[in-house]
């Protein structure tokens, strides 16, 4: 404070050894003695002023704007507090005034906290002065808070409330390749792929050549059997790595088949698995009639026959399934054409069931991950039971000592239940089902729109949180750097100012503005009340909030008796009118009457003031 006074007097160019001017200074209502003492001491002792007068800033503002000897109520929404002071006959009644601990500073802090919680991952830190700027520019008082909240929640009326704040950011530099470069890149890629293809074709060709050569060698070997003696031929066989003639025959067959396949592939002929049924001549002959080799043959034939039969059966089953599907689709179409409403209802029902299954699975997965949930505990109990070696000795009876777990196939299902693996396949199936039903509904049901589809309703962009954080338009694009630095101001615009009327929003255990005014007015006589209510005066920097006067008007009307008129006035210059009022006071005769002179200060002490209508009450 001393520095401030130094500055003021230096700017004024005071060159005398004392400041030879009477001072009028404002103080808060019910200023503690200690504070006033310090101030008076500073001014009188350090600066040597001749006389000093104290007053209350909001009352000075009242004096400037209204003056007169009327009754009224002064509401001063200040920087750190909000005061409500009743006036009777133009003089403030301090004993009935009230103070709320919410003002400009607290609103800035609250705004800052709200934005920090709303955007916890915001790239830059928001400063207090930025929050103050937001409060000054965008906060207003809603006429009806509940109504405003409902309108904000509604997606259609939301854009009228939403304000988008863009913070400064640095755009990331994306290297834009020119047309030329893109073409070059594409050409290079093509080259590379072509080269690969050529190399692959070459290797295939080489393999084919080696195979053909092998085939030639083997057939030569085989034909050599007739030329050479058996022993020599067998020795040659063993040298090349075969165990006997059958082996050689098999290999020849394999190589021939491979060559055939390769040739077909090159020529582009599609080679399907059309194998003729294998020979089954040996299967029927009983075992003891056959010799060693034949027995082997018989076994091989049996295997081949079994696999061939299985393949035939599988093909049959596939065809049957296809036929059945076609049949079902036809039935569905018929049902649809017959009774579209019922059919649509049926499909919707099936879709709901599938969606329920999906949701249930999700819920179960969430529950199992929580250690304390019932599902998790049941699972642990199952695991404990399975791992239990001794079992319960009480239940053992003669003849029932064996553990019959596993005899029934459904016993093994317990392992499925305790395993926490994701059942992705089932989820995919269900999703596919849902999509199928939805496509049907989209085609044939006019009331089912794309936005009702499961995907749209469960996507995160459709949620309320997303709407409040990222707005409705333009759509949030995760790649856009500008959007990462944006904040949306919607509920906060009205919430910050609503604290004046409902301090419980910030946890202040105080009554709101209207309730306090009501209490104050009720301390007066019934006759005096109407006069006070007709003359409500708003001042102070925080009272510049748009919409405050209207809101006060409507709310005070609710607490005043029917038919009474309520008039709420805002100071012409809420910030500086206190000074103007004090200047007016100083220029009038009141200054001489109510200022405390130096002699009086030295006699009575620093707490001494003279009471006038625009200041505090003196407490001896």
């Amino acid at each position, binding site marked *: 404070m001393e*520095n401030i006074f*130094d*500055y003021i*007097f*230096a*700017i*004024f*160019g*005071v*060159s*005398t*050894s004392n*400041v*030879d*001017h*009477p001072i009028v200074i404002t103080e808060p209502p*019910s*200023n*503690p*003695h*200690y*504070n006033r003492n*310090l101030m008076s001491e500073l001014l009188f*002792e*350090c*600066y*040597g002023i001749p006389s000093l007068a104290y007053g209350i800033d909001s009352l000075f503002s009242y004096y400037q704007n209204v003056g007169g000897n009327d009754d009224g109520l002064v509401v001063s929404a200040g920087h750190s507090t909000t*005061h409500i002071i009743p006036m009777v006959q133009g003089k403030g009644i*301090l*004993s009935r*005034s*009230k*103070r*709320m*601990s919410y003002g400009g500073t607290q609103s800035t802090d609250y705004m800052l*906290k709200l934005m920090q*919680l709303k955007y*916890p991952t915001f790239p830059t830190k928001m400063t207090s002065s930025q929050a103050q700027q937001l409060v000054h520019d965008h906060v207003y008082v809603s006429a009806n808070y*509940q109504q405003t*909240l409902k309108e*904000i929640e509604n997606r259609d009326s939301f854009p009228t409330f939403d304000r988008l704040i863009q913070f400064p950011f640095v755009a990331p530099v994306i290297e834009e390749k020119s047309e030329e470069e893109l073409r070059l890149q594409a050409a290079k890629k093509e080259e590379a792929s072509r080269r690969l293809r050529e190399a692959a074709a070459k290797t295939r060709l080489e393999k084919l050549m080696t195979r053909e050569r092998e085939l030639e060698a083997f057939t030569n070997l085989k034909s050599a059997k007739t030329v050479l003696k058996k022993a020599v031929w067998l020795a040659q066989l063993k040298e090349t790595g075969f165990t006997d003639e059958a082996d050689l025959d098999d290999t020849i067959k394999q190589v021939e088949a491979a060559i055939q396949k390769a040739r077909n592939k090159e020529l582009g002929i599609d080679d399907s698995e059309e194998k003729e049924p294998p020979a089954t001549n040996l299967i029927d002959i009983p075992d003891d009639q056959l010799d060693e080799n034949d027995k082997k043959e018989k076994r091989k034939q049996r295997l081949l026959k079994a696999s061939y039969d299985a393949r035939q059966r599988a093909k049959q089953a596939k065809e049957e399934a296809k036929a059945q599907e076609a049949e079902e689709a036809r039935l569905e179409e018929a049902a649809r054409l017959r009774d579209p409403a019922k059919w649509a209802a049926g499909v919707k029902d099936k879709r709901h069931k599938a969606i329920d299954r999906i949701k249930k699975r999700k819920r179960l997965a969430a529950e199992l991950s929580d250690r304390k949930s019932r599902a998790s505990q049941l699972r642990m109990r199952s695991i404990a039971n399975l791992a239990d070696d001794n079992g319960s000795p009480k239940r053992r009876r003669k003849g029932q000592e064996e553990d019959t777990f596993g005899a029934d196939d459904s016993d093994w299902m317990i392992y499925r239940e305790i395993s926490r693996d994701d059942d992705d396949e089932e989820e995919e199936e269900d999703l596919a089902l849902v999509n199928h039903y939805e496509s049907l509904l989209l085609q044939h049901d006019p009331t089912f729109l794309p936005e009702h589809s499961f995907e749209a309703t469960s996507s995160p962009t459709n*949620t*309320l*949180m997303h709407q409040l954080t990222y707005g409705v338009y333009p759509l949030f694009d995760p790649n856009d750097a500008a959007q990462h630095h944006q904040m949306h101001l919607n*509920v906060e615009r009205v*919430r910050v100012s609503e604290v004046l009327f*409902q*301090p*419980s*929003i*910030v*946890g202040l*255990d*105080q*009554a*709101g503005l209207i*309730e306090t005014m009501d*209490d104050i007015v009720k301390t007066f006589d019934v006759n005096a009340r109407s006069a006070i209510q007709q003359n409500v005066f708003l001042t102070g920097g925080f009272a510049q909030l748009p919409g405050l006067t209207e809101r006060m008007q409507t709310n005070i009307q609710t607490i005043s008796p029917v038919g009474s008129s309520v008039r709420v006035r805002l100071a012409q210059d809420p910030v500086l009118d206190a000074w103007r009022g004090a200047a007016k006071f100083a*220029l009038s005769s009141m200054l001489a009457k109510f200022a405390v002179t130096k002699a009086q200060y030295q006699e009575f002490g620093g707490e001494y003031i003279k009471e006038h209508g625009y200041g505090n009450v003196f*407490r001896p």
Partner: protein
Amino acid sequence: MAPKRGKKSNQNDDENGELTVINLHQCKRPFKNPKYHTPKKWKNLKQVLTLEKTQDFDLDIPTYQSIECPPSVRPQKKYCDITGLEAKYTDPKTGLRYHNNEIYKVIRTLGVPGVQAYLANRNAAVILK
């Protein structure tokens, strides 16, 4: 007496557009009493208030404490801690108030520091001393 006319132009005048800045250390301050020494110790609000309490006055004289607003007697309207919309429900586990089940899902994903941050906004956080 009003300050001298001529010095008004030194103030932050809109017409002038100039803001005179002076360095307090450099300029002379003849108006200050050289014998006066500012007290080095100040009292904070708590101490001032206790000091006030010790001085007794008549009951109808207002003090700094007495003009404080009393608590409200009207039922409190509850608002969602996350969104600010009307809150019809309260989460029993964390004590947070929420607007609908979508917000409830968000609350469940918050960790303890997040929950305490939201509660602190409402002056309802747990304070460990």
